[in-house]
């Protein structure tokens, strides 16, 4: 029986799932509800100046990249399995599409974060 390459994708899926489980809910609340609505947090929580400061700090870059990349890998891996579960025949091509999408998103995020620079 051929050795599966699942461990690679499963590790990324697991890391993303754990991150999402630990802080995902609060992240959604802060970025999608509290800050935009000015509810429990000031309306300028995610101001351009503040977000640039976050994205220019190396820790901020790591955090933003981790969230975007791992959430994408988690989501794409699971959605790929969802397709299989509802009876769609998922071959190597579709597998590459889903995981490739997550990889592409990761690369785009990394590029943007590097391009934003380190401030100063």
């Amino acid at each position, binding site marked *: 029986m051929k050795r599966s390459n699942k461990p690679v994708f499963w590790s990324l899926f697991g890391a993303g799932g754990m991150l*999402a489980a630990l*802080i995902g*809910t609060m992240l*959604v*609340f802060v970025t999608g509800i509290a800050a935009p609505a000015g509810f*429990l947090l000031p309306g300028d929580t995610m101001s351009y100046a503040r977000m640039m400061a976050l994205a220019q700090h190396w820790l901020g870059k790591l955090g933003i990249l981790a969230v975007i990349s791992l*959430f994408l890998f988690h989501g794409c891996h*699971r*959605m790929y399995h969802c397709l299989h579960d509802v009876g769609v025949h998922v071959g190597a091509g579709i597998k590459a599409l889903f995981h490739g999408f997550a990889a592409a998103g990761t690369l785009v995020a990394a590029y943007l974060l590097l391009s934003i620079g380190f401030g100063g």
Partner: protein
Amino acid sequence: MGKPKTYLRPMTGWWRRNPFYRSYMIREFSSVLVTVYALILLFGLYRLFQGQAAFDAWRAALATPGSILFHLLVLAAFFYHAWTWFEIMPKTMPFIRLGGRRVPDNAIVASGAAAAVALSILLFGLVWWVTR
């Protein structure tokens, strides 16, 4: 005498036939909203890269009632993900023993949930403190 003709029942609609399967499918499909949220953040990062005007436009879009309502849905999906994630976590771990006794599964679930609550409060507290 040849092998008798067996009958294999089709799998179509399997997940609709049992509430246990339906919960499983909801759990799995929460991944769609997790992906969408990641893409929203990625798009926001792109807008940030483009400059103040573009980023402010993105923020304005987030502040619309439609977006807030959508994020409530996303919030529900993330919460369900977290709940089911910790519920299933013990199954992926070997038996843990403390003082010779096996740590029960619900203790592992509770620790996971507690860690999530603690980190979430920490995150909110950090944001609140930075923006006070």
